[in-house]
């Protein structure tokens, strides 16, 4: 590896986001900023105002007749298949036909000369429903015998009954874990332009352009090659644009083809939040057996999830909850079952962590239970249960943990955060009584990296070197703020040893790299970075081969030096060298490809190696709680996170900080609330409260474990960073619990449910006081 770099934008260096200057000056174009061609039409969804019902009649004549309305689309107007199910289960009609299954389900779309006309026309629909009973909660769905939306999974190792029989203690409990809206600042949007024959181009704010392409083709009844999907950047995704863009892309394309005009569809924030999926809510029934030292003997947990009206991605999401139900801990005997429940709510979907955080939170609840039961510091219980390095290192899915860095990471964080002294101070503060109580907690994270759908772990990239030496980079990943493009450009700059300014990053398009996977599962850099490197290596190999022939030197004497190429004694600028290669008819572009090695997974058996490696982290939070109102502040948080050998430390740190605050929101103030009629009433930022600047930890120390290096051959030995740090703020949640528990002298586990709103905190305080 070259250490003596002098190029701008080398791998492992801090570099600003490639769009930063455009971001701050308003020059970064999002989908709604693209100039509209003359005659652009605007579509808007008409949605159900009932949670569960038969549709008796749907009279749209007034909608059609409204001035400025061009037409209305319903299921009858779909030339292909009226379905946008991302997993091919055909359970997600684009337009409802006979039945409404949740409040906010799309019934029809109106297409009009302006968005304002379309929005107003929607209100003119006359729809008659025959209401049916509805179910909102996952445990209610279980109780009422609602079906699974997809096959449940069981992970099993050892013999739970045997483990329980030999254990000194056993605790059973239930934890409710709320969902979360993505609240990406840019809502869903699609903008379609008709082309000749069957062609259509769709600009979409999506993490998964290939799926949007396939869904548009599926709905239009045309081959995939007729559809192009483009995305330059998203205003945030977080999983919410992995499958949920399908309905918007499909309707924009459908209307564009029908009326042969450009068509844009952009829901308002309320419709975006009512009609697109969120993080899954879970009800976890846990049963943990343990010995007097706090070491776990057996775990038997059931994870019921509110999946909503269709399967969407609920299968892999609930699977991942089970994959992370161990978090960092060895369970000698274990049985974990998922219950992906159908409910009359919007179909829940991917969200940063993809079910993993719910699994981890439940694991940490069991640690709390043990600690409060035994009167120990939860950190001591955590350490007693960490995976071992040579033994006690097999997960419930029979993958051996080979890269555990948690003991060192936690040790360092415990020291750097002065955990022990601060915990003593917190205990002393609380011992004085008083209204304001404090809590402190250190929690770890271990997160498995790879799509558990093994075939998704492939990627492509396209690298062009033009004959002036400038480079175009394209790959299958999408940019949603995470800095993926910047990091991959750094890989390419490093490969050719050119300043990063020579590299143009172009929009993601299904025209350049086909069959791409979603930019999801934290995999964007791992997969696409390797594909880009593969493309660079192909070009470099051709260049070296040509240089050897042309200059008569050995391959070892052709060197890519910073902005130069050295061939024996001769030195060329990169541009001169490329020009000569072009004149000599060397192919100066390549398509790169990558697939993750080593992974395999047998879901039926519940065994395999679903993850290539694990990313780790840990965090300490200290909080203050007002025991009269339940209000709280996060006074300090310290984070130490493992990103392997970081490609761009400052961007990775940004991911960690951002994930921490987003995860904190999930566990504190972000509450989804449905009324008796089954309508989600928290459907805009006025009612759905994500963290503000004034909510973040007053003192916030975030560090990367700079000694870490991925033991697997990932791109430059880095590790994925998108999702793992999302679980770090579980320490905030547990610190709140500790402050609550202080009112009963820590004799009982506080059993806070998530999100721990001030209301839940106060009610827990009252409960603890008895």
């Amino acid at each position, binding site marked *: 590896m070259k250490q003596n770099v002098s190029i701008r934008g080398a791998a492992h260096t801090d570099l*600003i*986001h490639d*769009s*930063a*200057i455009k*971001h*701050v*000056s*308003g*020059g970064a174009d999002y989908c*709604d900023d693209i100039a509209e061609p003359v005659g652009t039409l605007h579509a808007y969804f008409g949605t159900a105002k009932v949670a569960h019902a038969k549709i008796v009649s749907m009279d749209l004549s007034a909608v059609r007749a409204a001035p400025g309305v061009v037409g209305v689309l319903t299921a009858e107007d779909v030339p292909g298949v009226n379905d946008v199910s991302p997993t091919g289960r055909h359970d997600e009609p684009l337009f409802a036909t006979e039945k409404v299954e949740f409040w906010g389900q799309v019934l029809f779309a109106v297409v009009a000369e302006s968005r304002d006309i379309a929005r*107003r026309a929607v*209100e003119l629909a006359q729809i008659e429903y025959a209401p049916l009973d509805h179910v909102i909660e996952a445990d209610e769905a279980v109780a009422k015998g609602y079906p699974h939306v997809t096959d449940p999974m069981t992970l099993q190792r050892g013999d739970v009954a045997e483990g329980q029989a030999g254990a000194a203690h056993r605790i059973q409990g239930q934890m409710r874990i709320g969902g979360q809206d993505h*609240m*990406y*600042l*840019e809502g869903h949007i699609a903008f379609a332009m008709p082309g000749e024959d069957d062609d259509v181009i769709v600009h979409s704010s999506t993490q998964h352009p290939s799926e949007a392409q396939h869904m548009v083709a599926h709905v239009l009844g045309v081959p995939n090659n007729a559809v192009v999907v483009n995305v330059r*950047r*998203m*205003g*945030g995704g*977080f999983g919410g644009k992995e499958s949920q863009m399908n309905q918007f892309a499909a309707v924009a394309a459908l209307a564009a083809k029908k009326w042969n005009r450009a068509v844009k569809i952009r829901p308002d*924030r309320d419709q975006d939040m009512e009609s697109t999926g969120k993080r899954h809510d879970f009800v976890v029934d846990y049963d943990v057996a343990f010995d007097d030292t706090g070491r776990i003997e057996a775990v038997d947990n059931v994870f019921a999830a509110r999946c909503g009206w269709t399967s969407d991605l609920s299968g892999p999401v609930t699977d991942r909850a089970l994959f992370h139900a161990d978090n960092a801990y060895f369970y000698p005997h274990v049985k974990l079952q998922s219950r992906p429940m159908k409910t009359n709510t919007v179909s829940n979907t991917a969200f940063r962590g993809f079910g993993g955080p719910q699994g981890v939170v439940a694991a940490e609840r069991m640690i709390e239970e043990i600690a409060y039961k035994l009167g120990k510091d939860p950190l001591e219980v955590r350490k007693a249960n960490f995976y071992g390095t040579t033994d006690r290192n097999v997960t419930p899915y029979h993958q051996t943990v080979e890269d555990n860095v948690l003991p060192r990471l936690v040790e360092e964080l415990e020291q750097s955060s002065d955990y022990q002294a601060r915990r003593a101070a917190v205990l002393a503060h609380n011992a004085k009584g008083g*209204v*304001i109580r404090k809590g402190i907690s250190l929690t770890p994270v271990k997160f498995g990296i790879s799509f558990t759908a093994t075939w998704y772990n492939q990627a492509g990239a396209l690298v062009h070197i033009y004959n002036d030496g400038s480079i175009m980079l394209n790959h299958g990943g999408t940019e*949603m*703020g*995470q*800095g993926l493009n910047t990091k991959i450009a750094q890989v390419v700059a490093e490969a050719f040893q050119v300043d990063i300014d020579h590299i143009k990053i172009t929009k993601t398009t299904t025209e350049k790299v086909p069959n791409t996977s979603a930019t999801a599962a934290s995999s964007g850099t791992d997969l696409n970075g390797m594909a880009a490197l593969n493309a660079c290596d192909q070009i470099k190999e051709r260049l070296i081969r040509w240089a050897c022939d042309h200059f008569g030197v050995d391959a070892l004497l052709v060197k890519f030096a910073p902005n130069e190429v050295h061939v024996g004694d001769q030195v060329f600028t990169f541009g001169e060298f490329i020009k000569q290669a072009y004149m000599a008819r060397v192919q100066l572009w390549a398509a790169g490809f990558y697939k993750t090695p080593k992974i395999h997974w047998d879901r039926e058996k519940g065994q395999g190696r679903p993850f290539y490696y694990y990313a780790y982290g840990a965090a300490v939070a200290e909080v203050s709680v*007002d025991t*009269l*109102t339940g*209000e709280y*502040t996060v006074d300090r948080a310290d984070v130490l996170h493992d990103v392997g050998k970081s490609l761009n430390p400052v961007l990775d740190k940004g991911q960690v*900080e*951002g*994930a921490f*605050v*987003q995860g904190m929101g999930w566990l504190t*103030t972000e*509450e989804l*609330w449905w*009324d008796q009629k089954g309508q989600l009433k*928290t459907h*805009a*930022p*006025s*009612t759905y*409260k*994500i963290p*503000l*600047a*004034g*909510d973040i930890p007053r003192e*916030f120390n*975030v560090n990367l474990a700079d000694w870490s290096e991925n033991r697997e051959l990932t791109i430059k030995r880095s590790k994925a960073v998108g999702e793992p740090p999302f679980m770090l703020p579980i320490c905030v949640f547990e610190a709140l619990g500790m402050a609550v528990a202080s009112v009963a002298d820590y004799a009982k586990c506080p059993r806070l449910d998530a999100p721990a709103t*001030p*209301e839940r905190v*106060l*009610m827990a305080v009252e409960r603890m006081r008895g």
Partner: protein
Amino acid sequence: MQHRSEIRFLLNGRQVALSDVGADDTLLDFLRIDQRLTGSKEGCAEGDCGACTVMVGRLSAQGLHYETVNACIRFLATLDGCHVVTIEYLGGPNGRLSPVQQAMVEHHGSQCGFCTPGIVMSLYALWMAHAHPTVKQVETALQGNLCRCTGYAPIIRAAQAVTEYGTASAEHLAAEREAVAAKLTALKDGARVDVAKGDSRAILPANVDDLAAVLEAEPEATIVAGSTDVGLWVTKFLKRISPAVFIGHLDGLKEIAVTEDTVTLGAGVTYTEAQGVIAQHYPHLVDYWDRIAGWQVRNMGTIGGNIANGSPIGDTPPVLIALGASITLRKGDVQRVMPLEAFFIAYGKQDRAAGEFVESITIPRVSAGHHAAYKISKRREEDISSVAVGMNVTVENGIITQAVLTFGGMAATPKRAAAAEAALVGQPWSEASLLAAAAKLPEDFQPLSDMRATADYRMKVAQNLFRRFWLEQQGEDARLARA
């Protein structure tokens, strides 16, 4: 009275005159759709996310003053006579970034970038006022800006570093101040503005007397001050508000008068404009005031509007009623004064006749006594109260002689706790008396459960606040502070 059928304002570096303007046209749609100034984004269209933040400069008695507003709920017609500054105008020639923008770049303050233009605008306005803002000032300036990617930490670092990249006085906006003020002065013609698009009509009265005249002629008109509520009627509920009478520009409604006994606020005084006088005369409201909405909304929203719209969860009525405030209503030339609490008749019903408007609010100067104002919300800042309370207890010789306890969020209107108040009067000033009064609260209120809080929590926390009140009056540390 001179009438004018176009609005005129400065948009960045040029003057704009528009005659085809309806009541419900928003500034954001004008910027994005008509002008293709797409740097300002729509994130929520309800004034909560701040992605559409722009600065509006306005001439007042104190001169030219810029403040941040949410373009999504700011009506276009109200820009008459103002200078609108968007993200596109901040930089210099040849793509030079302003120091705020440079600091945001260097400190990695953007990730997806969608909230960024709005954040830059808020930080720019902050920097114009404070070259070296504290963390607290930065957080307060960003109360109305959501970011979902960064966790704000790099944005706060950037905000504190701006001055390393330049000085506000060197900015072109500073250099242009006098010229802008001169242009805005030239635009002031003292005319009533009456514009329309199709059948949607917007009227900007020339002065308060003209407002009275306009409302006499159009008694069913929608009166719009800061549009922080009415804006949502349009953007979220698609309500038509024509004819709309805009009053936010009327200097005559922005007067603040302090006498020996009272403080009088014109109905058009915004939360921001009132901040100084409130802090000076009602120090117990300082923390409370900072928790009303976000900065942009405090710059737009008026106390008169907060009262006139009759919401049971408005932030100011509970604390103003507790202070014994009265309001002056006016219809034509006829004024009437009533206690504020009498204005709220029932949910959605206030004692205001057609054609009548709230002209001013008069608040007695604080008496010696015990005062407190508490707001409880799911999120500490920029959230609507689940419970709000103003407390005002007079004690003579150790005995409570008067108690005014007014709650928001507990009933269909802002309402006094009659039973709890009665339980206090005549009792010794003690914790036991307060807790006994708290126990009476269920006689006063049967709160609702909704997305903000359950009825149980509302009641429990309302009762617990009696204890906080006692402890704080004893000088105990009974409240969280984010120092």
